[in-house]
């Protein structure tokens, strides 16, 4: 649990650094997100006058739900201690809880920007979540389980092979991950231009430690998605339960490599593509939903594709 928490800001910093390098800038050092978090934590909170208790409780709830979800995804080893307490569907739903409270927090102060962010966020989520559930269905049907540890162990075995439905599910999952983490082309994490922002608009009224907690939660979410993709679609090098410390060390090294690769690809993708108009997003996510549904249908029709 602590590992993901420590690594998450590093990943964010790494992606920012790579993006800056690709734009021929020098960029902030990779440890910058840690410094930002520490600085925010030390500052006082400036609370809007009519903010309610929900506004103050929401950051911690969002953080807790995301952290629990992130802790349930295998990182460098399968057979987590509590992996049976929640399966993939529950992880998706936990992220849904986090989003529910974030959207409410956006509405709490009663500003127009908060509202715009919340209403767009729920629109995006209303398409991204079913697409995600369909991806989960596909994976669960292939692996015969919705338990992430079992899925990862199954994917490491040799019975999987190349499958059309897995490919479709991977594409859909990547599209969902981009939307859920507010990355380009759905949302821009670096903008404060009012017409284009979604996630940033919801957290506009937050400051100090509240903002730090929310930032940490969004880094965690990004890490979660990359770990999820890695553990399902590239499970090589995951240490099995009961193997020696050497296997664990090897697993950690491989995991760091996977995160770096994932972050690099994300940065590459973000620099290469432009942001979409908000009302093109439903088409983008609708495509993800259809791809995932197609993958599930393939699995229902024949178990071998």
């Amino acid at each position: 649990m602590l590992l993901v928490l420590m690594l998450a800001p590093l990943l964010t910093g790494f992606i920012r650094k790579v993006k800056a390098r690709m734009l021929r800038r020098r960029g902030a050092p990779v440890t910058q997100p840690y410094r930002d978090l520490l600085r925010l934590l030390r500052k006082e909170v400036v609370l809007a006058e009519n903010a309610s208790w929900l506004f103050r409780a929401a950051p911690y709830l969002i953080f807790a739900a995301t952290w629990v979800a992130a802790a349930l995804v295998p990182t460098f080893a399968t057979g987590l201690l509590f992996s049976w307490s929640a399966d993939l569907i529950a992880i998706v739903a936990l992220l849904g809880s986090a989003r529910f409270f974030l959207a409410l927090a956006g509405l709490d102060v009663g500003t127009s920007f908060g509202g715009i962010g919340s209403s767009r966020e729920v629109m995006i989520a209303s398409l991204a979540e079913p697409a995600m559930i369909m991806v989960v269905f596909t994976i669960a049907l292939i692996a015969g389980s919705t338990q992430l540890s079992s899925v990862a162990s199954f994917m490491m075995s040799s019975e999987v092979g190349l499958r059309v439905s897995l490919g479709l599910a991977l594409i859909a999952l990547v599209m969902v991950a981009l939307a859920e983490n507010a990355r380009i082309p759905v949302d821009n994490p670096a903008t404060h231009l009012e017409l284009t922002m979604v996630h940033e608009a919801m957290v506009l009224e937050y400051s100090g430690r509240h903002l730090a907690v929310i930032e940490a939660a969004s880094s965690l979410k990004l890490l979660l998605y990359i770990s999820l993709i890695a553990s399902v679609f590239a499970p090589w090098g995951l240490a099995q339960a009961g193997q020696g410390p050497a296997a664990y060390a090897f697993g950690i090294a491989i995991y760091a490599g996977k995160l770096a690769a994932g972050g690099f690809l994300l940065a590459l993708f973000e620099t290469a593509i432009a942001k979409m108009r908000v009302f093109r997003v439903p088409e983008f996510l609708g495509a993800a939903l259809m791809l995932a549904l197609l993958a599930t249908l393939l699995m229902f029709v024949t178990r071998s594709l």
Partner: protein
Amino acid sequence: MSAALVLLWCVAALLAIGFLAIALIRLSATTRVVYMASFVVCATAFTVALTHLIGKATSASTLVLPLGLPWLGANFRLDMLSALFLVVVNLGGAAASLYGLGYGRHETAPARVLPFFPAFLAAMNLVVLADDAYTFLLSWEFMSLSSWALVMSHHREQDNTRAGYIYLVMASFGTLALLLAFGLLASPSGDYGFAMIRAGTPAPWISGLVLGLILLGAGSKAGLVPLHVWLPLAHPAAPSHVSALMSGVMTKVAVYGFIRIVFDLLGPPAWWWSTVVLTLGGATAVLGVLYALMQHDLKRLLAYHTVENIGIIFIGLGLALAFEANGLAAAAALALTAALFHVFNHALFKSLLFFGAGAVLTATGERDMERLGGLIHRMPLTAFAFLAGSVAISALPPLNGFVSEWLTFQAILISPELPQWGLRLLVPAVGAMLALSAALAAACFVKAFGITFLGRCRSPAAERAQEVDRFSLATMFAFVALCLLAGIFPGFIIDAMAPVTQALVGARMPAQAAVPWLSIVPIAEARSSYNGLLVFLFIVSSATFAAVAIHRLASRKVRRAPAWDCGFPDPNPATQYTAGSFAQPIRRVFGPQVFLAREQVSMPPPGDTRPARLRVQLRDLVWDTLYAPIEGFIGLAADWLNVLQFLTIRRYLTLVFVALVALLLVLALWR
């Protein structure tokens, strides 16, 4: 005394309370007496039903009263299925009575509510207890009429008479469909007792026809699309505790009717039945939540949301039918448990939400969300209860709504084992609809809670709001506690439902109480498991850990300042997002297809000081394509038949004679 007899005494007591209310209507204490007595009776009935269900009584408790049809009597029977639904009915009834103790004080016309409220509770109990077609239909109609009287209690308010009229027409239509269904079921022997019907095996085409009629009859009461039109009109029109009963409990009685007839009386199902039920369920779930998102009236939004949840329940029932038809008993038990669990859950959180809406109505006199806002500051306890209900209904862990949806998803994941191609193609599509409706439900309740309780007050009425009385609050918090308990200890509820599935589909889910750490495991642990307790503990402990650590180690200072809003804060509350604008992105995505939505902006020319206007036009396609033509046809037919009212007596006699001859002729040819 047998359990069924005790329950019938409870029903008789409820009816007596109704008559008492008529007799004492002039006294001011009547309100309190009626609700208190109803509460006590419902609580007794709840205890009896629960002990019957948990005690796993081996034999059903039956009783025949010398009422009803002379050769049949009025048969009553308490088996596992009826015990489960009696638990739901009386839990909702007890809560509504308790809530009524506070809420009923603000009633402007108590004489129109008090006699019918206990009668409505009695009728719902009777439907669930009935063991022959005659008693069933009589109680069913009694239930419809008593609830109709409650819907009409505020008949002077705008639109309420129309709501009552449409409800009456739809309820009569539904009862007619059920009457025909029972007629078909009882045809060979002419015996209307459920025991005889159960023993017979109807021909396949008859069972198919009966299924269609049941879907019309029970479906119209439950609110299946396209028979849902009366529901969002009638449920909000009633007083709020009655709305809670109608939405949370009466729709469940309709589900009971469906389960009783299709799973119990109709004999072994054919696989194609499930395709009908699944399609209707999926369409109901998605359309219900989309309609709900477009509403600005808080109670109407909740009523449309009931439609969505009925869809989810019917998806579970359809899956159970599909598995049962193919002999996959364990899977059928899982799907049926999911549906029954959702019945229980929906009764909990929908009642809770209607109680919350009633509290808002009491405090502000407003149902229109566009005129509310900021209530979390003035009614913090109601806000908390409504928030808990919203989280539960949006199927978010760790509350109970998630558990039943998770079980439904698990049932869908077994369905590749079904041999029929039609089902294999249909089930994933229904799964996608279920996921879509779950995500849209979350959006809908962000809107419902966010616009009503958060932000700044949009009207003076909202600014003057005050927290409601302690009876209402106690009821709401009891249900919040139940939602949480059902969410973190789902294993116990699943085990309590095991005898029901054992009786209906001949299998049960594996016993959950023995699983370590109170997880729930539908099939095998390697396949899937969920532990609400641990998830709840994890979230609570990590949130507390984060909060404490940050407050201790970092800063804990707070400064209040005006809202930032990117540097452009505007003190006018009209600059906030409204319910309409919040739903705009979703309306733009789904609206053109589902509602033929059109938006028109009329922008005055530069220099003109008139405000720009945005007009949104939504059309209800179900009403336009199905009901409007029927309405038109009835109007036309009435015009034609109008001629018959102005004939001479000679012609009338001729008409009677011709009719008589025609009937005799039919009879002669038939024999």
